[in-house]
């Protein structure tokens, strides 16, 4: 049941310009902070050291010296804070600007507790619907349009960029660029209910041509099953309650409550970044999702073993 994928998910391991520049800001803060903390503690110890005659300690002369120190240190504090403020604001300004080269715009819609993803395209047939995964081309700025279907969620891929909330009734945008190919984890960062902990997904950054191939494949309807077992699985999917909530393009399954499963076999993870996409995990998830994500809307399914095997074969064929 354990997710095997070793995806990068650390703000200290940046792979895009956003996270990279924030990481540098963090390093600046860190060094400054350590100096400040040491200065305060050294000051405290130095003040507390009983190295002088207590009677002489408290003289007007010493007191005015203390006043000068306080003024001086205050000035230093203000100066340090002003420097960091300027650094902050300048960086914030450059990061929030929309990159004019944005080539790819993706809608990400938050649900309790999964992500709906739609690659926008002026031609409706070319739009790609998927869920719980995001593929982006390396080195190309991407705009995410963030919306929510229910409560507030927050999109956070620490290695790529800072987070941005998905708020019902608001439209937020997040711009980022991934410069290194790889698999990066996204976690919902705003508390969104029972399964907030298990609302994650993966960003796959890949070379431009590979991405284009992926996108083209995603545009296709689900492949028609070739063997009889998978064919029976398709029937199970359409007649059992799967199709009530899930869509598989090219079939009669048109549910919109749960994630689109048209190309589920190509995905990295199941259950919104919770399980790695293996046959066993998929079976466990279908039979008893409430054990893995208690509270999730998907009910337990008491399928006949043969039906389950057929269903797994069918879902496994949805490349």
């Amino acid at each position, binding site marked *: 049941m354990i997710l095997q994928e070793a995806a990068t998910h650390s703000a200290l391991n940046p792979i895009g310009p956003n996270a990279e520049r924030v990481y540098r800001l963090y390093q600046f803060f860190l060094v400054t902070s350590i100096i400040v903390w040491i200065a305060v503690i050294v000051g405290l110890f130095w003040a507390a050291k009983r190295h002088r005659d207590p009677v002489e300690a408290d003289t007007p002369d010493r007191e005015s010296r203390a006043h000068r120190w306080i003024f001086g240190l205050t000035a230093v504090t203000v100066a340090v804070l002003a420097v960091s403020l300027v650094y902050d604001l300048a960086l914030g300004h450059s990061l929030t600007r929309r990159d004019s080269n944005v080539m790819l715009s993706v809608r990400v819609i938050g649900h309790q507790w999964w992500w709906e993803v739609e690659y926008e395209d002026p031609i409706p047939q070319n739009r790609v619907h998927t869920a719980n995964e995001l593929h982006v081309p390396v080195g190309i700025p991407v705009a995410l349009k963030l919306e929510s279907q229910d409560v507030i969620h927050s999109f956070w891929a620490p290695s790529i960029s800072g987070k941005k909330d998905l708020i019902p009734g608001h439209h937020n945008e997040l711009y980022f660029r991934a410069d290194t190919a790889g698999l990066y984890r996204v976690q919902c960062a705003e508390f969104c209910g*029972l399964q907030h902990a298990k609302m994650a997904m993966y960003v796959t950054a890949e070379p431009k041509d590979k991405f284009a191939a992926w996108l083209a494949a995603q545009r296709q309807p689900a492949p028609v099953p070739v063997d009889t077992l998978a064919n029976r699985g398709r029937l199970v999917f359409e*007649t059992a*309650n799967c199709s*009530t909530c899930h869509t598989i393009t090219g079939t009669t399954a048109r549910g919109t409550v749960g994630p689109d499963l048209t190309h589920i076999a190509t995905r990295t993870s199941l259950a919104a970044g919770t399980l790695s996409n293996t046959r066993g995990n998929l079976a466990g998830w279908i039979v008893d999702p*409430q054990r893995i994500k*208690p509270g999730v809307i998907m*009910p*337990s*399914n008491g399928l006949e073993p043969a039906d389950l095997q057929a269903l797994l074969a069918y879902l496994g064929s949805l490349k």
Partner: protein
Amino acid sequence: MRIHRSLIALTMLAAVACRREERRFRELPPSASAVNAVPVTDFQPGGTAIQESTWTKYDNNAYALSQGKKLFETMNCAGCHSHGGGGMGPALMDDQWIYGSDPAQIFKTIVEGRPNGMPAWKGKLGTSQVWQIVAYIRSMSGLGSRPAGSSRDDHMKVSPNLQMRKAEKPKNSFVPPGAVMP
């Protein structure tokens, strides 16, 4: 003695609150075996007994009601019944019940469908999900505990506040001729 009584009162209060607030996530896998035992009207022999134990898990349970409401919307029940006021299908917030207001009867109505357009949800929804919808539908006409319901949706719609709803007295209305079972 007084302490005894107040203890009993407190325990009862706790029981009510616990039932209302319980979140039951794992339910039985779907099976429609319970449905066949449910008669539609009192005119049939056998009365309207259902397994009390099944129903009490959903009755007056806030989580079941909210899940039921979510399903009512996502399954497009509102397409015919509107948000309780009725349209193509009968209203659900009044006191008229064509096929009975008993939880078991509503359950059967959903699972098996009814003539004149009500589809059968057997195999489309799990048993527990149907029971959740039943709980919500009953709450629409004020049957069941008020504090367990919610005041409104986050949508543009006007439906009664379930916490303030006056309970309707269910009547078995006439069965439309087209709806008489063969």
